[in-house]
């Protein structure tokens, strides 16, 4: 088994970064699986097999969303940009540029706080201790 989700020597990485990298690897794998199911569904004609594939793809949607939410909770700048892009009607690229500028070109989230509720965004730290 490989440990190729780490780009740097794992022993030099703090636990919180190793967990972050694992979540990123999971996110990637879920996105790949969603793409694979999409292709299988596009070519499958057996209704029973199709139903199973749709159900399985739904599971991957859930897994992807959970991984993403966990990563966003741990990364205030990413969360801030995502809040400006996700679930917004209109031009996605425009929203992306605006959200990026609001996050990095200003002095930070400022009085709004780093998170939606104005908190410090610390949350759960389980798994961060060695």
């Amino acid at each position, binding site marked *: 088994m490989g440990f190729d989700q780490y780009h740097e020597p794992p022993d030099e990485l703090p636990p919180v970064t190793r967990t972050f990298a694992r979540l990123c690897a999971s996110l990637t794998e879920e996105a790949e699986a969603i793409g694979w199911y999409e292709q299988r569904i596009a070519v499958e004609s057996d209704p029973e097999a199709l139903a199973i594939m749709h159900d399985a793809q739904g599971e991957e949607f859930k897994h992807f969303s959970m991984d993403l939410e966990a990563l966003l909770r741990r990364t205030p700048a990413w969360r801030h940009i995502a809040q400006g892009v996700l679930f917004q009607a209109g031009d996605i690229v425009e929203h992306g540029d605006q959200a990026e500028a609001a996050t990095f070109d200003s002095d930070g989230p400022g009085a709004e*706080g780093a998170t939606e509720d*104005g*908190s410090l965004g610390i949350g759960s730290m389980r798994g961060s201790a060695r």
Partner: protein
Amino acid sequence: MNHLLRSLAPISDSAWQLLDDEARARLTPALAARKLVEFAGPHGWTHSAANLGRTTPLQSAPCEGVNGLQRRVLPLVEVRAPFEVSLAELRDTDRGAPDTDLDALDKAAHHIAVAENIAVFHGWQGAITGISEASPHEPMALGDKPDMYPQPVAGAVERLLHNGISGPYALALGGEQFQRVAQTAEHGGYPLLEHLHKILEGPIVWAPGVRGAIVLSLRGGDFLFDSGQDLSIGYDGHDGDVVRMYLEESFTFRVATAEAAVTLTA
């Protein structure tokens, strides 16, 4: 604007960033409880109680032909640590000063982290039952010789195993005990920290506020932290010299499996 009223403070965005970053940096090393127990939420400032799934029979009923039960819940506590920051210091920060005096914020962060740790590990009278209070196991003596710590820690793990509580296990150490462990090498030079890791198969955590130490299982489902508003900086008021602010959170905590921890007394 929410209840924290941050937008009303006479503070620039960069100063807010500094305050939030400083608070986060000071809090995260000291928040031992949330490194070890399960954390649900944050559910927001309007979240007032945790569901216990329990009921109390009601002695009376509104009319004949019915009976009633009242749901039992565990109300959240609000914890606030006030502090003041000099407006002149914040203006200097905006000018690029790299050495802003944030001692009052640092102290407030330490106080609220200690309060959270004590509430979870030892309890808060009338509000929260802590892990050591709930544990049915007779406390074990940790002693004052750190190179002897492996004995009671292994004893605590054995007691948990004997009660069917699987690992991995964690060790929450009070400030004094953590310092002793960190600086001690056993006979032959083997670091005590590593020896304890091998016994526990889990983390050893600096837990300011903890009296002695606590060994607890990390298998999950035993210790439940319920967060309303997660740790936040809010604005209280200001005059010409200082801004009055506070660190605040709302939470409660409950022990689902009292047998899953053993207290080690100092």
